């Protein structure tokens, strides 16, 4: 009896035939007449209340016993986070945005049972004003090539069988039984895959070095310490499709001969950690991890480690130090990780997005993959398109798309019809790109020519109301706070740069400050210990290159043209527009606004702390910011 129970609970797939049999069984047993209802359960949609929507659906389906009719699932991040909670009703994929629990009944009655769209939940194209019913017609989606992210909308990441049904682990079977380690490395090399974590290093070359290193023990590492503020693609993949990363890592481990793997996830991504943990357990249960995987003779295990809240741990030697239980201080690396990495053993470290590309390349082949993208940058790239943009979210496009297409065709243009000023790419190590370069093709090699880089894919859109000096100050302060403090150029240099930028944004800048900052930038560039330090001055270099006039306005005229730097702006009330409603006076926490009812109000400049609450609260546009 115990044996029978144990056999029932034993899900381990002993070989490829059993895997294929399971895949077929799952697909055969699927009732394709059921209508699929996918609710996005990514962190973004949860922040907008998706959990309540999921509960409402679950309750309603249970109450009305609609399980026979509805295939309901909570999926990973769909990418259009600003429109969450997102619900997609299949098979035609009717796309609903901003769904609330109160809408659930109507959705079931109208859309699921009768196939009719609920108009008020549809996406409206800001350019044409028309309602769009199907996901594939939504401009944000239909210009994307969602090779990696597409699966996020289809599967429940906490159920490995859904991944298997979607073709999961077929790349692993192919790698283990139809290819060999050399062939696998060749495929990755010919595909032209380059690291998606920021460095853009040719992945095949890295795998080859690790493969040829002689050692009894080798490690495979996944860098999920996505620290660039504004980028969250890795979170989305780990939350929404963790098995794609796991499968990639197993293939990589087999190719180089590693037996142990680590996924290093940021502490700030609790849901990603949870889903990765569940996925690893299930992969172990089903025999994709552990001893003698699918009877191949190859054994491999993966452990999850959480970061401790340090951007610097995204740097490879700091990440390794953290895995070894030490503080996250980088080391001067004159020996490659492929020879001496974690515990001085050869280690293969790749980013989440890089790993997620591996099963795709193995399945479809290097020839197919290398046809996508540009000459030097193959495949698709997932960007996080955020900031002052209408359609904000995760965008997956072939390398080589222009900035204009990203921002206007997919992004739908600037929020509120304002004027585009710059797009910041590559995180704190990158730079700001102004309007004249909007037709640049985005890939690993084009952006550095403009003084920026693709980095990890962050793309932050800025408009006329963004102060570029403030942006530089923001990034330098960020880096100063995250600096590990080991080397003099970064620790001291960033602190001094921060002091200077603080003075400039407070109206105390001096003309020689700009030269001083450029000298500091040179010191960082040549002297800093790690790549993060060497690129730390890029926000300043890049904004000085294209927006020097803004710096000069702050220094010479003590003015902030964009109206952001608090010390340099003044809030006053236009007596012509003021209706004397008193809203601003009540909102002001300093009682700095005075005036009689129905009489124009006045701001007392001596008491004003420039918090901007009056500007926000005025319904008549009578508060002037200059």
């Amino acid at each position, binding site marked *: 009896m115990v044996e029978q129970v144990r056999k029932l609970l034993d899900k381990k797939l002993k070989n490829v035939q059993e895997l294929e049999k399971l895949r077929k069984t799952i697909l055969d047993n699927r009732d394709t007449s059921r209508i699929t209802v996918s609710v996005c359960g990514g962190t973004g949609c*949860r922040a907008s209340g998706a959990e309540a929507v999921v509960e409402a659906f679950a309750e309603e389906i249970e109450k009305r016993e609609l399980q026979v009719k509805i295939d309901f699932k909570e999926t990973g991040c769909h990418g259009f986070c600003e429109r969450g909670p997102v619900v997609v009703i299949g098979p035609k994929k009717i796309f609903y945005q901003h769904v609330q629990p109160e809408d659930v009944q109507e959705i079931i009655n109208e859309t699921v049972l009768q196939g009719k769209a609920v108009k008020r939940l549809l996406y409206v194209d800001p350019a044409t004003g028309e309602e769009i019913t199907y996901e594939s017609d939504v401009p944000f989606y239909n210009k994307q090539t969602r090779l990696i992210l597409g699966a996020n909308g289809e599967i429940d990441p906490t159920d490995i069988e859904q991944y298997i049904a979607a073709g999961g682990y077929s790349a692993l079977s192919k790698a283990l039984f139809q290819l060999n380690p050399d062939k696998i490395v060749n495929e990755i090399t010919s595909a032209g895959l380059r690291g998606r974590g920021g460095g853009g290093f040719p992945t095949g070359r890295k795998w080859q070095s690790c493969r040829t290193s002689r050692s009894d023990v080798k490690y495979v590492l996944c860098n999920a310490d996505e*620290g660039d*503020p*504004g980028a969250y693609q890795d979170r989305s993949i780990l939350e929404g499709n963790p098995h794609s990363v796991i499968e990639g890592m197993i293939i990589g481990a087999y190719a180089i001969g590693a037996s142990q793997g680590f996924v290093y996830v940021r502490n700030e991504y609790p849901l990603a950690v949870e889903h990765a943990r569940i996925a690893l357990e299930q992969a172990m249960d089903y025999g994709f991890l552990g001893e003698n995987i699918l009877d191949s003779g190859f054994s491999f295990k993966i452990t999850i480690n959480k970061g*401790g809240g340090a951007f610097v741990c995204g740097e490879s030697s700091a990440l390794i130090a953290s*895995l070894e*239980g030490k503080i996250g201080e980088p080391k001067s690396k004159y020996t490659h990780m492929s020879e001496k990495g974690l515990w001085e053993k050869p280690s293969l470290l790749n980013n989440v997005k890089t790993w997620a590309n591996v099963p795709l390349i193995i399945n479809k082949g290097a020839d197919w993959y290398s046809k996508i993208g540009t000459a030097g940058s193959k495949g698709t790239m997932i960007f996080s398109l955020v900031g*002052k943009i209408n359609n904000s979210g995760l965008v997956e496009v072939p390398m080589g798309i222009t900035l204009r297409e990203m921002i206007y065709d997919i992004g739908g243009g600037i929020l509120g019809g304002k004027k585009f000023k710059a797009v910041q790419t590559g995180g704190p190590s990158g730079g700001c790109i102004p309007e004249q370069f909007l037709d640049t093709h985005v890939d690993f090699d084009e952006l550095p020519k403009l003084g920026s880089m693709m980095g990890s894919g962050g793309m932050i859109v800025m408009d006329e109301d963004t102060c570029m000096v403030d942006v530089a100050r923001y990034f330098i302060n960020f880096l100063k706070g995250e600096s590990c403090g080991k080397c003099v150029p970064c620790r001291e240099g960033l602190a001094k740069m921060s002091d200077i930028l603080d003075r400039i944004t407070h109206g105390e800048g001096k003309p020689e400050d700009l030269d001083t900052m450029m000298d500091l930038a040179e010191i960082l560039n040549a002297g800093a210990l790690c790549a993060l330090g060497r690129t730390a001055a890029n926000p300043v270099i890049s904004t000085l290159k294209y927006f020097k006039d803004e710096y000069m306005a702050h220094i010479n005229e003590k003015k902030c043209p964009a109206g952001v730097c608090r010390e340099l702006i003044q809030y006053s009330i236009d007596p012509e527009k003021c209706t004397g409603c008193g809203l601003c006076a009540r909102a002001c926490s300093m009682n700095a606004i005075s005036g009689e009812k129905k009489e124009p109000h006045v701001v007392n400049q001596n008491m004003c702390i420039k918090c901007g*609450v009056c500007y926000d609260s005025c319904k008549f546009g009578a508060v002037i910011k200059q």
Partner: protein
Amino acid sequence: MDTELDFDTIRTIIEKNADKVESLIDSYVDKKEQLISLLQDIQSEYNYIPQDVLIKISQKLDIPLSQVFSVATFFQAFSLKPRGRHTITVCLGTACHVKGGQRLVDKMERDFGLKPGETTEDERFTLETANCLGCCALGPVVVVDGKYESQVNPEKLEKVLKNYK
């Protein structure tokens, strides 16, 4: 945890749970490289890491106390002082900053006298900042006791915080 806890009560609970702490540390005895994971477990259990726990870790895992202390002070996730009843984390990632995230931090200072990392006198709130929580399209984002709030402005923040005594 109910809302009437103060630092003394927290300390008493920890003392009563000494066994729990012991067994937690014991489970890491031959895994000194997982020091950071252990510190995280303790941090999430007690909302801070007490001094005597750091000393116990050093003894049981055979790591010099100075090194345990270095790790505990290097990483932002660990707090060596007890936190307030409610932790408010304001995201200061680039996207949230561009949409006005700093104003929320300023408001916390105005209304509660709090700078990031500090706790109010009455132990009600602790303010933390995070460098990007990964919800960039929904900024500015604030997390209160693990609950995410999106598109927060100073007014909305005030409303949300009224619910947290």
